[in-house]
Structure formats: C-alpha cells, structure tokens
C-alpha cells in the first residue's frame, strides 16, 4: 500500500541537509584528528552515506528506537545523540555518552533512542526485534529501525530476524545501507541475487531506493515507518549508497576501481542537496552557509569539550559489569 503525504516537504529537506552537513563535517573533523595523531580509534567513516541516515531520521519520532553498527556516526547524529557526548566517547572520556567505556563502536544514548551500537556484523537485528517486541507488548507506538550493511545480509542473524519479525508483525524497519562493499569484497561477489528480493522470502515488503536521493529515501523510510507504526509489520529497505573512505580509517580502498570512486565523489550527496535547496529556492546561499557554519562551530566546541574532559577513574573498570559491584570480583 502506498501511503499519502509521504513526500518530503521543504522543511524536511532543510532538516535533512542540516543533519547531513553535521555528519559530513564531523566525519572530516574526526579523520583530521586521527591523521594528526590527536585521536586514536578504530574508525569506520560514513562519509558518502549521510543522506540515508538523515532522511530516515527525519521520519522518526524522538522516542523511536535505533540500532546501528560500528559504522554508525551518521545514524547517531541523525537520531540526535548530542555531539559533545559523542565526541567525548570517541576520546574515551568520562563525559562520553558511555563514560568512555564503550567507545566509538558501541555508542548508546537511550535519551535519543540510540539503544545499541554493535561491533558484530549482523548482530543488531535480533536485538532490534526484542526492542520492538517490548513496544508491541506495551503498545507504546514506538518503531525500531535497525541499520546494517550489505555484508550483514549474508549472516544467519539477518534471516532469523527477518523471519521472526514478519511472523510476529513486529514494528521494525530493516534498513540495509548497501555501500556496495562488504569489507573489501564487492557485494556482487559475496551476495547472491538482489538484497531487496530477500524480503519476498519472508513475506514482507522490500523497497529498493537510491539512498543518496533525499526525497526518494525519505519516501521509502516514511512508508516503512508508517507501516510499522500502524501494526502492519516490518519492511526491508535496501538503500543503495557508497562510502568514500573505505572500510575503516586507513584503508587505501585499493579494491575499489578508481573510476567508480571518482564518479561517486562527483555525485557527493551532501553538496548535491545543498545545491538543490538553493536551486529550488528552498533556502538562500546565505541560509545554507549559516547551516554549514553553525555545524562547524558546534563541532569545534564539541572537540574542545571532549579534549578537556577528564578520563574516567580506573574504579570504573569494576562498575557497570553487574548492577552492583560484586564482592571478591
């Protein structure tokens, strides 16, 4: 069923741009810190995938749940994890969203609905079902979005989770951010058929969308989110996108054809949306320039905050292992 009013309005597009430019600039700042040796982290850049997260988040309520993966900066910022808490966590500082104890691969911020960030490929999906099961039993109207890459569609948990979610009509959106490479292996070399077609096998709708197109992505997300919220069950979205910075920071991406990378960068979705806003008269050059400048200022402030924040006390090693610290631990 196609739902009415599923199109992104001007305000939605501005919101998506504001989020996208924040993600893009934060990623650039983090890579700059890594390059200069100011930060040490296993970092998985989402550069190039900003629109997928920003458009999805524009369709969500503040208390909806999000589950994501180690490449999760874009999902975290889009859902509203405060930049200071996020940056301090990257630095392993006590003011981080997890007191520095989880790190950049395990951001958790329930206040923003970011419930789990997993470092294990495919493991977010079974947990997302559980969050959605809680919502279904409590009838709280929440939707859970679980993000994963194309590589995760070849692990058993994807299939177990899709089956269970469909069977129980759980309010889940399975958002596959297909960036065309599973670690260093091209998707077509490790994935039989089209990912979106796997939805059919589990009796749920599958939507194939250009994840870098903000309007198409918003419409796809909106349809899946509304369906879940209405109690009709899960949807699989395959959002085609691309990552500019390889699998992890320092990956020279030698396995990506040069022409492919050049073409993707020529179609960088964030400046493209910026141009679209001006071209359509949704915002002026001055207005988008201010959005960019606001993001830059916020990032600079967050980096300073994170660098100045203290490290956690070593006593933190024994707290939060259990609800109460065990004697004789």
């Amino acid at each position: 069923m196609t739902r009415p009013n599923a199109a992104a309005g001007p305000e939605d597009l501005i919101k998506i741009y504001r989020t996208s430019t924040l993600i893009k600039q934060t990623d650039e700042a983090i890579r700059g810190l890594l390059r200069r040796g100011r930060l040490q982290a296993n970092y998985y850049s989402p550069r190039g995938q900003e629109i997928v997260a920003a458009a999805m988040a524009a369709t969500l309520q503040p208390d909806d749940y999000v589950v994501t993966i180690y490449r999760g900066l874009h999902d975290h910022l889009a859902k509203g994890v405060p930049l200071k808490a996020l940056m301090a966590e990257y630095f392993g500082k006590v003011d981080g969203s997890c007191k520095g104890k989880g790190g950049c691969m395990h951001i958790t911020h329930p206040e923003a609905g970011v419930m789990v960030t997993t470092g294990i490929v495919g493991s977010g999906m079974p947990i997302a079902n559980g969050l959605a099961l809680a919502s279904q039993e409590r009838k709280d109207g929440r939707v859970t979005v679980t993000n994963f890459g194309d590589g995760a569609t070849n692990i058993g948990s994807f299939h177990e989770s899709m089956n269970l979610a469909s069977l129980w009509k759980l309010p889940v959106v399975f958002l596959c951010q297909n960036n065309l490479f599973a670690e260093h292996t091209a998707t077509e070399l490790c994935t039989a058929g089209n990912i979106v077609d796997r939805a059919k096998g589990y009796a749920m709708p599958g939507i194939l969308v250009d994840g870098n197109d903000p309007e198409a992505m918003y419409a796809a997300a909106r349809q899946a989110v509304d369906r879940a919220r209405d109690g009709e069950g899960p949807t699989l979205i395959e959002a085609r996108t691309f990552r500019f910075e390889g699998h992890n920071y320092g990956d020279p991406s030698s396995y990506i054809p040069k022409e492919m990378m050049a073409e993707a960068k020529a179609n960088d979705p964030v400046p493209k949306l910026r141009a679209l806003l001006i071209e359509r008269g949704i915002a002026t050059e001055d207005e988008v320039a201010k959005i960019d400048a606001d993001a830059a200022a916020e990032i600079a402030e967050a980096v300073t905050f994170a660098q100045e924040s203290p490290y956690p006390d070593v006593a933190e090693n024994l707290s939060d292992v259990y609800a109460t610290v065990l004697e004789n631990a």
Partner: protein
Amino acid sequence: MAEITCSQATQQALDEAMAADPTVLVFGEDVADPEGGGIMGSTAGLSTKYGSRVRSTPISEQAIAGAAVGAAIAGMRPVAEIMLMNFITVAMDMIVNHAAKTRFMSGGKTAVPLTIRTMSGAGIGAGGQHSDMYEAWLAHVPGLKVVVPSNAADQKALLKSCIFDDDPCIFVETTYIQFVKGEVPDDYEAPLGKAKVSREGTDVTIVGYGRPILDALAVAEKLAAEGISVEVVDLRTVMPWDQETVFKSVAKTKRAVTLHEAVVQFGVGAEISSRIHEELFDTLKAPVQRVGSMNTVVPYSAPLEQNFMWSQDKIEAAIRRTLERK
C-alpha cells in the same frame, strides 16, 4: 507438604513471576500450549493464561536470545528458553557479546535483566550434542550470572531470583533431576550468590552444584557409617559463587573436594580449588581434589556413558585421597 518435580517448580516460578510483573515475557521453542507447553511441560498453561506474553518461536536461537536482549534493554524481564545447553553455542554472540557486555559498554545506561533457561546433563543416552554442561564457559564471561539448582525448591526460588535480578542470568536445569520430586515450602526464597550447606560435617567439604549434589549426599551418608563426617556445600549459584560460605566450611574441615557434572579440565572446580589454595593454603591438610566427568566427548553407549560420568565411587575415592594425610 505436596512434592513436585523440578519441571513443575519451573512452571510455578514462571506463573508466579508473570502474575506479579507484567514485564515478564516467556518465549522459546514449543513453549506455548498449542505446542505442548514445553518439551518438559515447564511452561504448560502459561500461554493460555497470559496470551501474547508467552510465545513459541521458530528454531532460531540467535533470534530467541537476541529478542531477549532487546526486550530487556527496553525494560522488560524476558525469560527465553534455549531448549538444550548445546544449542546455546548457536546463540553465543547474543549472550557473550551483547547480553553480558551491554551494561558496561553503555556506561550503565542500559541494563539487560534477562533470564535464559536451558537444560542439559549426561546419563540418559542423549550422546555428544545434547548432554554437555557448559557453565564454565559462561561463568568465564564478565557480566553473566550462572545458576544450577539441585532440587525442586531451589529451582523454583532461584528461577524467580534470576527473573527479578537486574543482570543477565543463565539458568541451567539439569535433565535427570527434572523428574525428581521435592518439597517446596510456600515462602521459600533463595537469593543469588548464596550457597546452602546441605549437610554439616567436620572432616571434609564437598563443594558442588546441580545433580551431583544428590550423589554427594549419598556418599556422605555412606561414609558416616565408618565415622567420616562429610560437609556438603551446594553452591546453587556458580557465578558469582559464595566464597564466604566455602572458605568458612573448608577452614573448619581443612579438606575439600570440588564436584560437578562438567568435564574436570578447565572446569568450575579448578577455579574453586585455586581460590581455596590461595586463601587457606596453610590451613589445608591435603590438596583439594576435583571430581567431574572425563575429558572426552559425551558418549552414547550406556557403559561408555557411565564410565564418562562422575560417580559416587569417584567422589568417595576423592574424599579418601584427602584423608590420606593426617
């Protein structure tokens, strides 16, 4: 007082927990009434009484354990059943990487108050993939609690303690004793992390848990006839284990034997033995002895399986070894 089986004890614990707290959910393979209320009848009647809070699942251990993790993070108290302990191997990522670590990695922002019920144990000819005891693996993971009851009263009380505990608990029901009946007083409680001195004695302490406690008590009774006084400490909770009760007992008897169903090598007995030596080396009159199953695959053929398993003879021999030094 009426006697009930351990399986019935589980059923009563689940029923009482679900009646007391609407956040308690039960799911797993075949647990709902149309599917028989569980292979042991441990969940019989619950789906009829509590509707969608009790659900039969596909044979999908990752999905079962993952749903428990997610529901727990969202504030529910799920009780997931992984039918047999060997099948936990299929769900280890959810248990080890997620259930156990989520509280710490989130800086305490998210808790995982789930319980995973599972069953295992040798001695019924189930062979190599339906009989293993893997509690040592799980006890080795920071963040998990592991409970192995030895009788109906403890099974009921400890299961409720697990359900209402704020940490992820693995609750192991040993296959053989599920058919054994015992008295369950109405007001009986068993907190996690507290051992029970099942029999008092003065010459040697047996520290164990689960089904072999029955054998320890039988051996203690037998040796009493020749004047050997055996104290039996039933740990009940494997992690965190009650070091205070164990050290107090061994400080008194000065001799100890550890006992469990699992194979001896790298087992829970090794940790207990090590800690006793660290704390009470100067008090001990003999090295701590360990009893468990043989370091091999659980065999099918009955004589092989009997040979593989711990036994009352092996317990008695271990006790006598501790008594050789005066």
